């Protein structure tokens, strides 16, 4: 029969593929009918040909199916329905929706903030284009049996690397170790600025973005590059290239270029200028010295070279240049790549250890995850709690023919919708809160709006949150059996009770843990702040005597200042009072030699009176005894090391590095001064009298005169006597407070995060309590009718929650104890952990729970039973 002959299959398939679904069967019918007739009339070959022609002619608009419409029509309708129902549900339960979305948004904001913060930490120094190839030269040495990593190098090393090993590097540059504070002045303005003294190749290595001039501008010893902020302060908006400025009123420098300010997340961010290293050395030190460690050396590798290989080449390069004493420390040179500078720069006995910064990144990361988890838990809790309302819907959908898969889809869809809404709110609130967050975290973070990666991760984030938050309701609600639900025999509230309880416990454990952490951070901070510092910080101002003009004006200045009546006294010292620089070994007492180095400070006669030394024994330097120029004052720790029973009046010999500096009489012993980290033990100090090389000037203001007036008077004296130096003073108490910045930042952020965690948890609790009360409305009504008192009802409703939070306390306390103990270990001067913190946190947690729950419980207990029983 004719069924055997069939038209060319390829074309028939092609036709089926492109043809409009609504036309397809009829037209195909026509084609086949025609084909069969033609087979009989003309034979198969011609019929095939004609069939092909027909098909090709059918390939025209009007017959070809539309591209999209047909495939998607069916599911679209149901999705629309899901969205509609989801939206209506949100609107119908405004209170719950607000708690849900608000809580999730709060959690997301925290997570986004922390995410941005971590991103900022991880992308540190990426501003520099040669990021991947720059390394700092480190030196590992053994001192007193301990391997130490050092950054300060000799000029000899830098020169050696450049001359002998230059083939391995694109660039080698030396920088004066640490920033230098200098007074920079144009004709009419002067400012104290911090910056670097660097070799000519440095700016190109750091890829400074030039606004004016070129990064190669440092070829000439008397040139300087300024940051755009400083350039603007000095010269306004004009191009200052070629203008001259003076530094510390002794050098005239030519501005060779202006670079864009280096952003905060670079290790060079505080560079307000780059001057030449030659200018700094100024002939007093050579570029090939091997005895002075005052340089940082940076190298830029050749393309494709790796740090380890080069390290193994240069490892021992310094050995031939060091004396025997030094080679015994077994110095090894190594390269520390720029990408590890920020988070991986701590060593312990020669091995890299997890740095505090990295720990902080981990801590914050964990907090972010936890807070987000809390918000998700809320969402899950409330959704399961509300499931009774949705149970009927699920039953009906199922009996109409909804598959379980579809219901799962629906509930996931809803949770995605909510998490997306929350994301939008979170983005908005992060945008609003960023300036404030930047201030406490000392960052300069912005939302990278133009970055597709950010949005991509944002949406991934919504997806994950949606999944996390929606899983429980999606899988749980969709499992309801329709028959039981519709009959009303189903009590979903009971079903989800245990997991819900577990979630509440988790939530409160985290909240209480964070509270404990915050309180301990703050206590440690207060503890260190209240540490006795050995001098009087109040109304003491310090400034850098950074101008040659100060020379020989000590007495005039002091007298003039004292004459104003606003000043109690004035003194000078070679180092700042909040600085621990100046270490020298070589002290001996009779036959007894002392190995360790002491913190040596040089001061003027009036130092003790000015800063307010507290003497334990002996007396201060005095002009009345001419022999006091060969006198010293030591501190308690030093006295302890010297081990002299009656130190006052004894003589110490000092011969640092073999050169005899003479014999000194101990005049007095003072209490230790906390100059360095307030968490470290104080250092043994020996204080000498000197008139030379004084860098710092201290003025004690008269507390009887108002600070403002006193400062004006002091400034006037400075302006007449040392007009070239800017009156850039700092208060000693403020300098001291700056030492707490890092911990204060951690404290503030921890407070912020734990406050949010508690708010989120309470929101969740509020929602749950409201739900319980609503579920038991009738029961409460009946109880009241039978004579239950408000107090007993309150007890009944609050009991469960209080038990849960108490369990949470039992989890949080040991965990907090363990974690905070670990945190405190990093401080030597630390707070003893007391039980009070834990008690306060737990009682606080329980109190907040009671308040939150009581609000709902009291409302329920106060309602008129008539109104609750009359419904239905």
């Amino acid at each position, binding site marked *: 029969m*004719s*069924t055997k002959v069939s038209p060319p299959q390829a074309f028939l398939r092609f036709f089926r593929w492109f043809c409009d679904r609504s*036309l397809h*069967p*009829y*037209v*195909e*019918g*026509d*084609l*086949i*009918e*025609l084909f*069969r007739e033609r087979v009989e009339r003309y034979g198969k070959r011609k019929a095939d040909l004609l069939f092909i*022609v*027909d098909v*090709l*002619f*059918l*390939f*025209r*608009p*009007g*017959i070809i199916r539309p591209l999209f419409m047909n495939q998607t029509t069916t599911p679209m309708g149901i999705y629309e329905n899901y969205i509609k129902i989801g939206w209506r549900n949100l609107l119908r339960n405004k209170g719950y929706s607000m708690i849900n979305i608000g809580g999730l948004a709060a959690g997301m904001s925290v997570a986004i903030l922390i995410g941005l913060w971590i991103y900022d930490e991880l992308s540190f120094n990426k501003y520099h284009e040669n990021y991947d190839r720059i390394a700092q030269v480190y030196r590992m040495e053994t001192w007193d049996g301990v391997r130490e990593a050092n950054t300060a190098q000799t000029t000899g090393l830098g020169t050696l690397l450049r001359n002998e090993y230059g083939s391995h590097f694109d660039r080698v540059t030396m920088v004066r170790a640490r920033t230098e504070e200098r007074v920079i002045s144009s004709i009419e303005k002067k400012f104290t600025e911090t910056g670097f003294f660097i070799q000519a190749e440095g700016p190109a290595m750091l890829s400074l973005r030039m606004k004016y001039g070129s990064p190669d501008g440092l070829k000439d010893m008397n040139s300087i590059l300024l940051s755009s902020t400083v350039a603007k302060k000095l010269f306004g908006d004009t191009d200052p290239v070629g203008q001259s400025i003076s530094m510390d009123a002794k050098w005239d420098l030519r501005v060779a270029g202006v670079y864009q300010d280096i952003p905060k997340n670079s290790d060079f961010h505080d560079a307000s200028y780059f001057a030449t290293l030659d200018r700094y050395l100024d002939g007093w030190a050579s570029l090939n010295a091997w005895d002075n460690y005052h340089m940082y050396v940076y190298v830029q590798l050749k393309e494709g070279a790796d740090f380890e290989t080069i390290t193994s080449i240069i490892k021992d390069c310094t050995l031939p240049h060091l004396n025997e004493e030094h080679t015994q420390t077994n110095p090894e040179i190594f390269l520390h790549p720029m990408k590890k500078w920020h988070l991986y720069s701590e060593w312990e006995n020669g091995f890299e250890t997890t740095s505090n910064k990295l720990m902080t990144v981990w801590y914050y990361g964990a907090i972010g995850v936890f807070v987000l988890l809390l918000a998700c838990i809320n969402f899950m809790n409330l959704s399961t709690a509300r499931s009774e309302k949705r149970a009927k819907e699920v039953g009906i959908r199922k009996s109409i023919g909804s598959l379980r898969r579809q219901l799962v889809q629906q509930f996931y869809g809803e949770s995605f919708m909510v998490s997306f809404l929350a994301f939008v709110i979170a983005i908005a609130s992060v945008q609003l809160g960023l300036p404030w967050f930047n201030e406490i975290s000392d960052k300069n973070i912005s939302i990278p709006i133009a970055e597709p990666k950010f949005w991509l991760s944002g949406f991934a984030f919504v997806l994950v949150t949606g999944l996390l938050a929606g899983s429980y309701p999606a899988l749980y609600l969709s499992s309801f059996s329709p028959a039981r639900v519709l009959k009303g025999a189903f009590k979903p509230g009971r079903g989800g009770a245990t997991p819900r309880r577990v979630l509440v416990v988790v939530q409160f454990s985290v909240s209480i843990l964070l509270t404990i952490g915050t309180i301990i951070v703050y206590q440690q901070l207060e503890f260190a702040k209240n540490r006795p510092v050995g001098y009087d910080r109040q109304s003491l101002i310090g400034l850098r005597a950074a101008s040659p003009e100060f020379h020989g004006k000590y007495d005039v200045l002091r007298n003039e200042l004292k004459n104003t009546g606003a000043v109690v006294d004035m003194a000078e010292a070679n180092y700042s009072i909040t600085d621990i620089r100046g270490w020298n070994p070589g002290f001996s007492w009779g036959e007894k030699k002392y190995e360790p180095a002491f913190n040596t400070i040089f001061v003027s006669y009036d130092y003790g009176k000015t800063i307010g030394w507290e003497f334990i024994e002996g007396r201060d330097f005095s002009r009345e005894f001419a022999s006091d120029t060969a006198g010293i004052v030591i501190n308690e720790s030093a006295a302890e090391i010297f081990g002299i029973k009656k130190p006052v009046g004894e003589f110490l010999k000092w011969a640092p590095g073999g050169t005899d500096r003479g014999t000194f009489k101990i005049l007095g012993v003072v209490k230790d001064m906390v100059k360095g980290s307030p968490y470290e033990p104080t250092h043994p100090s020996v204080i000498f009298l000197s008139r030379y090389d004084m860098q710092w000037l201290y003025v004690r203001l008269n507390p009887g005169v108002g600070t403002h007036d006193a400062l004006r008077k002091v400034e006037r004296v400075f302006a007449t006597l040392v007009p070239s130096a800017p009156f850039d003073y700092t208060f000693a108490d403020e300098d001291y407070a700056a030492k707490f910045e890092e911990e204060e930042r951690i404290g503030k952020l921890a407070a912020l995060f734990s406050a949010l965690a508690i708010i989120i948890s309470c929101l969740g609790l509020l929602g749950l309590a409201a739900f319980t009360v609503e579920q038991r409305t009738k029961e409460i009504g009946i109880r009241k009718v039978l004579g239950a008192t408000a107090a007993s009802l309150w007890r009944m409703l609050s009991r469960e929650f209080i038990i849960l939070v108490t369990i949470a306390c039992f989890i949080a306390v040991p965990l907090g104890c363990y974690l905070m103990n670990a945190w405190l270990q990093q401080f030597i001067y630390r707070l003893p952990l007391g039980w009070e913190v834990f008690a306060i946190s737990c009682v606080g947690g329980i109190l907040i729970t009671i308040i939150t729950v009581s609000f709902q419980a009291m409302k329920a207990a106060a309602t008129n039973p008539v109104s609750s029983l009359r419904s239905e």
Partner: protein
Amino acid sequence: MKKFQLGEFEEIVILTVGILYKEAYGVSIKKEIETRLSRNVSVGALQTALKRLEDKGYIKSFDGESTEERAGRPRKYFQITALGKKAIEYKKSTRESLYRAIPKIALKANMIGV
């Protein structure tokens, strides 16, 4: 006045649908046009025209029986709607009025010219 849109081929198709009355479906329409007007009609052109006519509401369709010779595919029969009827009447009357408006002489002159 463009009250009724009806192309030349569409006009032929709708008239043929009318001729075939209850027997108008793809293949029969094609054959009818081919025999009456002795011109070739491709399935594609025909189907497009039918679809357009249907979209304009001049003809309507209903499913017919499915037969063995069509490998089980149903036929789709077409019928002229009231609107379709108006459309062809309008077309016919406009043509006639135009034709009648031609002066006799013009036709003759044309003949001479040819």
